[in-house]
């Protein structure tokens, strides 16, 4: 009960931050619209338009960027000051970071699910039609992972600014090598092979297989890997989180 109250408090804190709210609601739609629009001429009239492609890739990128929301919700200067009281209260330290993970996850999962549904039913982006629930599950897991990863970076770094700027690097790297912006196959076989190391590549491949081939072979491995990685992040949180980081 107490934990839920803390999570609710954290959730409201995110809602009160217009930048975070915007980047998790309107921003993904703008990105899809823009990328789809500017690359229209590269796509034919076949069964995948530019909007279908960037609908998947930009949602993946935005969901991954929930890391920034997590770091902000955890240790942004203003939030941090209010949170100082929490470390003096008789609550286990796990509740402090778990509530940030939960609040970020709830926001992300609600907002990205709505975006996917709006995308499919209002803007007719191909998110798999009847297979949409599987795409929802996939994005949901990605949001969970992002929330855990961002929180973990805060625990490790003890500082929002450091956590945010350093987390951006793997996001940028994995996105570029995962085919978010362009196809890595154009860069030759070596790069294509390297891209197999990028989790983003597997998420995209998994999504495209579900949408275009009705093929679910990657769904379980990908979702379980994300879930496992999320748990690993939580373990690192528990090992590294020092409540006194809030005080400095």
């Amino acid at each position, binding site marked *: 009960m107490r934990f839920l109250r803390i999570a609710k408090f954290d959730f409201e804190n995110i809602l009160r931050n217009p930048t975070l709210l915007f980047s998790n609601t309107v921003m993904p739609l703008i990105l899809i619209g823009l990328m789809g629009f*500017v690359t229209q001429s590269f796509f034919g009239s*076949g069964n995948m338009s530019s909007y279908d492609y960037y609908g998947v890739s930009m949602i993946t990128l935005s969901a991954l960027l929930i890391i920034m929301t997590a770091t902000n919700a955890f240790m942004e200067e203003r939030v941090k000051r209010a949170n100082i009281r929490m470390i003096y209260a008789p609550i286990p330290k796990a509740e402090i970071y778990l509530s940030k993970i939960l609040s970020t996850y709830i926001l992300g999962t609600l907002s990205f699910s709505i975006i996917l549904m709006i995308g499919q039913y209002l803007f007719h982006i191909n998110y798999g039609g009847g297979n949409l629930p599987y795409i929802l599950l996939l994005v949901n897991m990605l949001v969970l992972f992002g929330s855990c990863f961002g929180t973990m970076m805060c625990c490790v770094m003890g500082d929002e600014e450091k956590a945010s700027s350093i987390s951006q690097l793997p996001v940028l790297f994995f996105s570029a090598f995962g085919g978010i912006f362009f196809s*890595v196959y154009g860069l030759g076989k070596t790069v294509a092979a390297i891209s197999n190391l990028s989790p983003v590549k597997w998420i995209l491949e998994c999504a495209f297989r579900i949408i275009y081939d009705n093929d679910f072979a990657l769904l379980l491995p990908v979702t379980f890997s994300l879930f496992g990685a999320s748990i690993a992040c939580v373990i690192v949180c528990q090992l590294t989180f020092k409540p006194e980081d809030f005080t400095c």
Partner: protein
Amino acid sequence: MLNLIRNRFLRIPDKMHIMIIAVVVMPLFIGAAIFFSGHFTNVYKVAFISDHAISFPKSKSIQIDKINERPATSSLAMGKYNAFVEVNKDGEFKVTTLKGESDKKAIQTFFEGGKLPENNKTEQRGIGTNILGFVLMLALMQGVALTTFYPEDRNNSTFKRILTSPVNSRQYLAAQGIFTFICLYVPTFIAIAITKICFGVEIGFGLGNLAVLLVILASLATAFSLFMASIMDRNISLGTSGISIITCILAGCFFNFTGNIKVLDVLCNILPQKAFMILIQAVENGRAFQEFAGQLTYTVTWVFALWLVGSVVTNRRIKKGVY
């Protein structure tokens, strides 16, 4: 002024992560991007689905994998293949692709006649323009991280304290601007120059032109970051990244596009990045800077306007006693 700039450099050790990203990671990233874009192949990767042995003439522009079964459609989406080609009962080639009509026709022509049509590709932008378009977005995003001392000074009251000395806010912002500019300009220039000289990658510009273009690019990023840091109180980095990405896409930093929505066209043309992209494309094509004085003036005007607005907002807030 020098004292203020020195103060920023003295404080670097505490912001090592930002400096490492700015001075090591970003240049490496830019270097890698240039290196790989130099290897970007415009080859059609085609899966030819047939049980029969048919041979085609070899071409540098098309790479054919002969397979028996049609691959998953998702391999088109992922870009593993650009097209599937099948032969129907009448011996006609059927091309399935996600690419545009002209590409589809080109592949069709190749399979039917053994040759790709001449100039089948639409005119592509030079590699230098693509590189600087990408660098521009990174610089716009990165600039604000390098301006972090300014919001930090405001929060810690040291900004107000500095203003009680003979230094005014314009001088403070100028010193911060010079610091941001140096940290953006020097590593970027070195990264591109090293990639060009040591790895022999063609970047589309001579070092002289590159140096001048980067001055404009870094000035724009600096002015933008000072502007954002002045008008925003929190989440400055997130806000700046969002605006940078959207405006860079619209200005055609990554893809050259022609839309048919008038409002959007007007909007794109207002953006300083658009004028900058036109300028660099022209310079890459061997035209002189002077011919594009309009674009140059327009971009520089933006630099001053952003700077001015940032300064005015800061001054107004000081007078109101916000800081």
